[in-house]
């Protein structure tokens, strides 16, 4: 990370600014694994945006009736959609892993009288809930239950 000092760095500064050089992305952002992971994590935002809009379209189709719905379901078989969904799945799993590991320590030490459980417990609980919901959703949508 980090580029060499920028000549502007010595320019007069406003109080409260820690740097005066122009904003910059670290020069090695792609080769530094931690920064790369972080940026990829942020980049999944694009995927979430997209999957939301796609799903909204599907529900609208569901609202319009069987014909639209069937058309949508058929379109999803196109390789491009398959590829997109593979990307989505990878993203979601990646987000879950990173977020679950960061989430526990961001918990306040106490919310009023309530004290969150220790970090390790929260971390494990997140995985349990995630697996449970995913299993439930999968079984439901795939018609294995109900």
């Amino acid at each position: 990370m980090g580029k060499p000092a920028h000549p502007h760095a010595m320019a007069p500064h406003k109080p409260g600014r820690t740097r005066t050089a122009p904003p910059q992305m670290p020069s090695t952002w792609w080769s530094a694994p931690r920064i790369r992971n972080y940026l990829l994590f942020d980049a999944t935002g694009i995927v979430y945006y997209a999957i939301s809009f796609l799903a909204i379209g599907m529900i609208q189709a569901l609202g319009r009736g069987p014909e639209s719905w069937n058309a949508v379901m058929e379109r999803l078989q196109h390789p491009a959609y398959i590829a997109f969904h593979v990307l989505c799945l990878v993203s979601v799993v990646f987000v879950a892993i990173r977020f679950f590991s960061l989430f526990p320590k961001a918990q306040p030490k106490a919310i009023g009288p309530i004290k969150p459980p220790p970090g390790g417990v929260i971390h494990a609980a997140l995985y349990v809930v995630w697996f449970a919901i995913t299993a439930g959703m999968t079984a439901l949508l795939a018609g294995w239950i109900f």
Partner: protein
Amino acid sequence: MAEKTIVITRFDPDKDQAPRKQEYKVPCEPDWKVLDAVNFIKDELDGSVSHRWSCRMAVCGSCGMMVNGEPKLTCKTSINDYGDRIDIEPLANFPVVRDLVVELDGFMHKFESVKPWIVRAKEKAADQAALHETKGTYSQSAEQLATFKQFSMCINCMLCYAACPVVANEPEFLGPAAIALGHRYNMDSRDEGNAERNAIFRGEGTVFSCSYANECSEVCPKNVDPAAAVNQAKFEAVIDWAKNLVLPRGGA
């Protein structure tokens, strides 16, 4: 002993238009820290190299530099962690004063802006009741101490600022160490300044600017875990905000 090439970024505003790199061949002892190599250069090879250091025991916080692109406390980083060529630069994300010396003005300003002192609601005389009658100290349990102890371990080495991608791009961002410091006082059972600090934390360039890159905690040499502090502070600021919505004027 192994000879290593130490590349130091030089910048003298009196002479240089832009920073330049200078190489030194240094015979390094295996038990050296990176700082020892820089000191060797200063003492024996080139007296004009400028850098800060003092305690050489990882507690004064003055010797932070970029070592092969990573912010490091050089008195704590073994020279053997690196190969034959080591690139040493001033801390990223700070204005450079000279060579390896960066400017702290902005940092100190941010540091001060979170009110890093015990705020008490009452005037001192009226406050005496809270103090232990014979000893004059506040009572604090080991558990209460534990809630903020970690965040009080910050040595202000500023490595976290050099690592944080948001600091790099948003100069006004209060930054990890300053927020951790404010949060440390918020968590202290002796302090009553939460409302004031939470109001600061909801201001521009504060907790919500952090995108939880967690880089700050990765590079922190003292396990302060500033990322935890910043994100806990977000929670607290949100809770405080919600309280304000329900019960204006600071809630209960």
